[in-house]
């Protein structure tokens, strides 16, 4: 029973029946159906056990994943198992993907195909992040989900572009296809997707684990930001046809990063890899250095790969360095002119931005109307990277006067123009001025 019929009922392990309503999609291991169960709609994944190497072990692992529950709510986690059919086939149900999320694949393609129900013709619809902040937030969310997963002692195994849904307006992320997740060190037959697999997996000398996940994560991040393949450059394109042996060579035995500073043999090719060439000019050095490390020393030595916590810090910094200029130009601070070390200037309209320096870090945060900082940036032990702590706003009573509003639930102290520190309760604010100093508690900041 590899395929289910529409209208068919499938018994769940702990009682109840799920009625098959339609097909949602199919993948390498089986098919996902829309089902009704307990009066609600769910997704049912039904396996083609003939395509699986170890169905019994796989089922056992799935059962223990369900018992453990997801590391957090960003995972579309298996909920309930079905009863095994007579031939050993099985499946599980999970929540449906909520509205407003696009697949990572569609984001990389920049469009998605929607089938016109009347004509059956495919129509292209653009898929693009609505803001730079949303895109970098999505990156932070992806990194954070894998950090949580790895902290739970599990590895995702086949991390690739099919594994995420992203809200392009908010940067919210959902990790899907969680059924191959397994305790670090085990593998139930899944290999991974070419281009995303770590070189040692391609070469056949390692099975997927937490370290190979880290490589795949770097590929996912590179693809999302640079919109190209980190290993596909001149050297690969010269082969013209990607046969099995060229794949083994370029993604396994002799993988060379397109911007390896010590090996220029595989640079991106104009006309083919224009995205990568363009974005490599845009991102600041600390981001590029992290990718260089991941794809040079990190190729041969898995322990040199960037850990999730490090990625998370780098991208929280990158998010704080986004400047939205009044002229409409939005970019990273590194793409603005720096007339002195405390000021950024828009190269297009000349507008200048003051910056806030923090006591625990060297880089400065540019200030512009609407800019936000988050709890993890003002409380050392905080992991809250989505909880807004402060925002630059215009005084509602005095037009044109800009200040910082305390959106956190803690009291701060700020130095006012009269030279005296005042308490700033949650919900209150203070003007931004030349001598401003803020005391967040352990962390201090000043203009």
């Amino acid at each position, binding site marked *: 029973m590899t395929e289910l019929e529409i209208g068919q009922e499938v018994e769940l392990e702990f009682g109840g029946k799920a009625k098959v309503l339609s097909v949602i999609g199919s993948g390498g291991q089986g098919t996902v159906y829309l089902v009704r169960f307990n009066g609600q709609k769910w997704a049912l994944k039904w396996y083609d056990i003939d395509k699986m190497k170890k169905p019994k072990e796989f089922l056992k692992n799935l059962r223990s994943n369900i018992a453990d529950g997801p590391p957090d709510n960003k995972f579309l986690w298996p909920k309930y198992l079905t009863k095994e059919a007579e031939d050993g086939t099985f499946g599980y149900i999970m929540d449906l993907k909520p509205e407003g999320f696009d697949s990572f694949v569609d984001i990389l393609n920049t469009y998605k195909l929607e089938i016109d129900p009347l004509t059956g013709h495919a129509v292209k619809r653009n898929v693009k992040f609505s803001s730079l902040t949303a895109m970098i937030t999505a990156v932070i969310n992806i990194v954070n989900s894998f950090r949580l997963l790895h902290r739970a002692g599990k590895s995702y195994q086949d991390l690739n572009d099919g594994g995420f849904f992203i809200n392009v307006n908010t940067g919210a992320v959902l990790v899907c296809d969680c059924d191959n997740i397994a305790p670090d060190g085990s593998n139930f037959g899944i290999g991974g997707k070419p281009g995303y697999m770590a070189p040692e997996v391609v070469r056949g000398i390692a099975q997927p684990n937490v370290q190979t996940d880290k490589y795949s994560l770097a590929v996912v991040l590179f693809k999302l930001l640079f919109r190209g393949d980190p290993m596909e450059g001149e050297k690969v394109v010269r082969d013209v046809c990607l046969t099995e042996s060229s794949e083994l060579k370029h993604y396994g035995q002799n993988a060379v990063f397109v911007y390896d500073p010590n090996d220029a043999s595989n640079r991106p090719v104009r006309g*083919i890899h224009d995205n990568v060439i363009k974005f490599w000019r845009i991102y600041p050095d600390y981001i590029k250095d992290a990718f260089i490390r991941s794809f040079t020393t990190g190729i041969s030595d898995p322990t040199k790969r960037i850990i999730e916590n490090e990625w998370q810090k780098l991208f929280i910094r990158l998010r704080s360095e986004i400047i939205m200029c009044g002229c409409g130009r939005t970019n990273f601070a590194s793409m603005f002119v720096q007339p002195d070390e405390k000021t950024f200037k828009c190269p297009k309209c000349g507008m200048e931005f003051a910056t806030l320096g923090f006591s625990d870090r060297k880089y400065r945060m540019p200030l512009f109307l609407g800019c936000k900082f988050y709890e993890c940036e003002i409380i050392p032990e905080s992991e809250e990277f989505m909880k807004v702590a402060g925002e630059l706003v215009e005084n509602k009573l005095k037009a044109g006067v800009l200040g910082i509003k305390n959106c956190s639930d803690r009291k701060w102290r700020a130095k006012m123009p009269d030279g005296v520190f005042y308490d700033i309760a949650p919900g209150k604010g203070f003007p931004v001025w030349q001598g401003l100093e803020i005391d967040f508690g352990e962390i201090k900041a000043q203009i």
Partner: protein
Amino acid sequence: MINENMTEQDVNEVMNSADTAEAAYTDNNTVDDPLDFDDDPLSATGVSRKSLVIFFLIDTSGSMKGKKMGELNTVMEELIPEIRKVGEADTEVKVAVLTFSTDVRWMYSAPIPIEEFEWARLRASGVTSLGAAFKELNARMSRNGFLNSPSLSFAPVIFLMTDGYPSDDYKAGLNELKNNSWYKFGLKAALGIGSEANDNVLAEFTGSADTVVHAYSGGQLAQMIKIIAVTSSQIGSKSMTLSDDTSHELGEEDVFAAKQKLLGQQIQELVNKAETDDVPFDTGW
């Protein structure tokens, strides 16, 4: 190395149409004038995709007339949306259809992206010039012909469907084709329709018996076409799966023709599962 048929000129064409980005890298440490290029971090084109061309070689000789052709036309129309799902973000799938009867003819003058492909219904008449079809395929299956994508390509999928014994010298055509590297590395599968089709000829074309299947009825024909087309385009646009044995490092000999072998296995598994209870083409007249 690979693709002997691919000349130095072919490679140079790729490289000339495209400058390497060395300049962009070395410039990187000096301050770029941020306004001398489109520096919007959100404006990107789609990731460069690898292309995969699926060649359908279809027998339109007179013996295909009637139910076989009707069935074939219908299933091909239905098949296009299913193949559309295969490529996803990484692969741009294109389709080229070569029909052969007394003459050989391409349905369109170039491979068409699957999103835009529309099946033009075929009619049957004439004899079975399979050798001429092989020659024509060989002529077009080149960098200057149908496989001219500037970015990387996967080896093509070549799917042959016929219902009779070739009426011309197919061996001469096949010998020419066998020297073509795209053919060598391509994924080949064949479907014999009805009892006249010769599986040995088809196996000569695919290189192995397990990538040849046979359909004796309309239901089977539809089923087999779908199995072969979907499986081969899936395998063609993705690639090698993991080996369980991590005790020795994979070498070139381990991965050589791995996809063709996998295609043979999967086709056989699916064919054995497929049901066979409807009426054969040749009975019930």
